[in-house]
C-alpha cells in the first residue's frame, strides 16, 4: 500500500489550504500540448504482436462472451453483468450471474467493474487476484465457482480450479458444441480438438481479449479542453478539473490517461468492526500483507458517469456521494486509511468535481460490434 501518499499530499502546496476562487485559466503547455499533463488523452490501441487482432478472433471472442451454453448453469453469459449497452457493467451493486431464480444466489460479493479501457490496464479486479494479462483475465470467469461458469460447486467461495475449468471448457468447445472447432481453426490456425485444454483455454482468452479490445472510452470533452478547446466543457467542469488535480488531491491515485494508478489503496470502504473484522479484506486476501487489509484497486474514471453504482461493493449510487465519503469522517475511519489528510470540500466544489468527471465521458463505443452475435455455432 502506498504510505508515500501521505508525504505526497503534504507536498501539494499551499493552494490546498485556501478557499480562494479556483482559476481555470490554465495555459496549454507547449511541451505537452496539454493544460493538465497529469491527465493525458487515451493513447492508441496497443500492438499485440503475439496476438494480432483479426475480425475472426473478434467474432469468436464475441461468441464466447455471449454463449450461455458455456456457463455452468447454462443460464448466464459474461454480458449479463458486463452489459455492452451500459459501459460493460451492470448498473446494480452486486450481481447474481447464475440467475438461479427464484433463489437469486450466488450473489457476487463485489461490484461488477466496467470493462471499458481494460485493454490498457496493467492490473485488474478489485483485489488483483489471479491477474496476469488481459487474455487470462477474460477467460478466468470460466474457472470461478461463484460465477458458476465452470460446472464446479458453488460453495467453493473464491477458490478456483483452473485445470478443471480448462477441461470443462475444452469439452464444451469440442464435444458439446462442435461448431466452435472450425472457428478456432479459422481464427488461430489451430485444431482445438487435438490441443491441450490449457492451450484451448489460452486461445479462448486471446479471442475474448481481441473482442473487448475495442471497448474503449476516449476522446472526451475534457480531452478537447485539455488540448486547448476553451468551449469544450463547462466552467464547472473546468473548476472540477483544477480541483481534481489540486485541492481535492484525487489525482494522487486517479492519474494518467485512464485516471488510475492501478495500485491498491485503503479509502475506508471496508472498515473493521469492534472485533477487527472487515466486510472484505480486499488486497490482503491476495498478498497476506497486513497493511493491505481493506485496500482495493483504484478504478479507472473514464466514462465513470455511466457506471453507477460505485466502490468495490457498489454501495454508493452517485459520484457526489463517493466524494463526500472521501472528504468526511467516514472516509478516514479506517486505521489503515491511505487518505487521512483529505480536507472537506464545499457542496459547490463537489458539484464541480462531478461535472469534471462527467466530462470524461468518451465517444460512443462500437456497440454494433460488441452486442451479442446474431448466431452462435
Amino acid at each position, binding site marked *: 500500500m502506498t504510505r508515500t501518499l501521505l508525504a505526497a499530499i503534504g507536498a501539494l502546496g499551499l493552494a490546498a489550504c485556501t478557499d480562494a476562487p479556483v482559476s481555470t485559466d490554465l495555459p496549454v503547455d507547449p511541451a505537452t500540448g496539454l493544460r493538465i499533463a497529469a491527465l493525458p488523452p487515451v493513447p492508441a490501441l496497443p500492438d499485440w504482436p503475439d496476438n494480432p487482432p483479426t475480425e475472426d478472433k473478434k467474432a469468436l471472442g464475441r461468441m464466447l462472451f455471449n454463449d*450461455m451454453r458455456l456457463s455452468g448453469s447454462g*443460464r*448466464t*453469459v459474461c*454480458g*449479463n*453483468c458486463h*452489459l455492452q*449497452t*451500459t459501459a460493460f457493467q*451492470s*448498473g*446494480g*451493486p*452486486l*450481481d*447474481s*450471474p447464475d*440467475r438461479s*431464480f*427464484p433463489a*437469486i444466489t450466488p*450473489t457476487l460479493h463485489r461490484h461488477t467493474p466496467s470493462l471499458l479501457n481494460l485493454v490498457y490496464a496493467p492490473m485488474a479486479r478489485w483485489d488483483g487476484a489471479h491477474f496476469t494479462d488481459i487474455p487470462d483475465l477474460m477467460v478466468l470467469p470460466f474457472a470461478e465457482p461463484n460465477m458458476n461458469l465452470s460446472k464446479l460447486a458453488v460453495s467453493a467461495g473464491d477458490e478456483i480450479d483452473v485445470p478443471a475449468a480448462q477441461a470443462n471448457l475444452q469439452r464444451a468447445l469440442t464435444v458439446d458444441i462442435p461448431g466452435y472447432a472450425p472457428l478456432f481453426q479459422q481464427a488461430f490456425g489451430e485444431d482445438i480438438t487435438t490441443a491441450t485444454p490449457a492451450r484451448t483455454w489460452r486461445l479462448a482468452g486471446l479471442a475474448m481479449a481481441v473482442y473487448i479490445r475495442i471497448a474503449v472510452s476516449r476522446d472526451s470533452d475534457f480531452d478537447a479542453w485539455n488540448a486547448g478547446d476553451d468551449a469544450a466543457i463547462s466552467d464547472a467542469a473546468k473548476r472540477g478539473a483544477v480541483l481534481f488535480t489540486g485541492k481535492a488531491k484525487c489525482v494522487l491515485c486517479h492519474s494518467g490517461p485512464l485516471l488510475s494508478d492501478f495500485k491498491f489503496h485503503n479509502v475506508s470502504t471496508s472498515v473493521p468492526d469492534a472485533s477487527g473484522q472487515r466486510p472484505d479484506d480486499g488486497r490482503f486476501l491476495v498478498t497476506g500483507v497486513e497493511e493491505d487489509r481493506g485496500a482495493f484497486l483504484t478504478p479507472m474514471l473514464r466514462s465513470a*458517469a*455511466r457506471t*453507477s*453504482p*460505485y466502490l468495490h461493493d*457498489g454501495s454508493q*449510487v*452517485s*459520484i*457526489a456521494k463517493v466524494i463526500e465519503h472521501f472528504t468526511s469522517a467516514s472516509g478516514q475511519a479506517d486505521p489503515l486509511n491511505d487518505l487521512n489528510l483529505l480536507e472537506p470540500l464545499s457542496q459547490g466544489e463537489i458539484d464541480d468535481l*462531478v461535472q469534471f468527471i*462527467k466530462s470524461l*465521458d468518451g465517444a*460512443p463505443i462500437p456497440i454494433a460490434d460488441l452486442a451479442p452475435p446474431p448466431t452462435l455455432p
Partner: protein
Amino acid sequence: MSLRHVLFLACLPLAACATDDDAHTLTMSATLTTNAAGELPFLSPSATIATHAPADVVGKPYYVGVFPAGFSSGNDPALYQEWGTVPASLSIEATTPAIFSKGAYDMVLVMYTNTPVTPAQLAFEQMPPAAAGGDLSSFTLSAADVLPGDPDQALGTLRMNVADADVRVDISNRTPTDPADRDQTVAAFEHTVLIIP
C-alpha cells in the same frame, strides 16, 4: 394505490418549464400478467425466464422517474419522480404533470421487489437505491425510439419523444412462448419488464 409520493421538480435548469400550450404529460403503463402456473414470468438479460410469485410483488414500492435523454444514472437529478406501491391488480400507470416541452426524455420504472427502500428515499431525501437482483425494471432492447442526433437511452429507460402531444408507453412482462425461438425472444425484450440479475 396505498402509497404515492410525488416530487415535481419543475424549475430545474434541464426541466421543460414549458407554457401550458406546449407542455405535455408522459405516461408509463406497466401491466404484469401471470402464467398458467399463476406465477409472474420475467425475462432476465440472458434471455432466461425467471419468476416471482404475485405476492412477492404486490405491495412493494415502485419508482418512476423522468430524466433528460441520455442522463447519467445516479448523477443527474430527475425532472419528475414519484413513488407508488404495486397494487393487487398488478397494473401501474404513472402520468407526469404536463411539464414536458418538445424534446427527448428517458423514463424509468423500477419495482423494488427485493431491495429495501428507506423512508428517507421514499421522501426524496435520498436517491432511490440501485436496483439489485430480483428487482424489476422497465426495459427495451432496441434503440428504435432514439431519434438521430439524440443521446443513447440509459439502461432500463424508455425514450419518450415529445413533439406536439402527450406521450404514452405501455410495457408488460413479455416473455417468448418458445424460448428457443430467437425472433420471439428478441421481440419480448421490447417494452418489457425485466428482472434484474
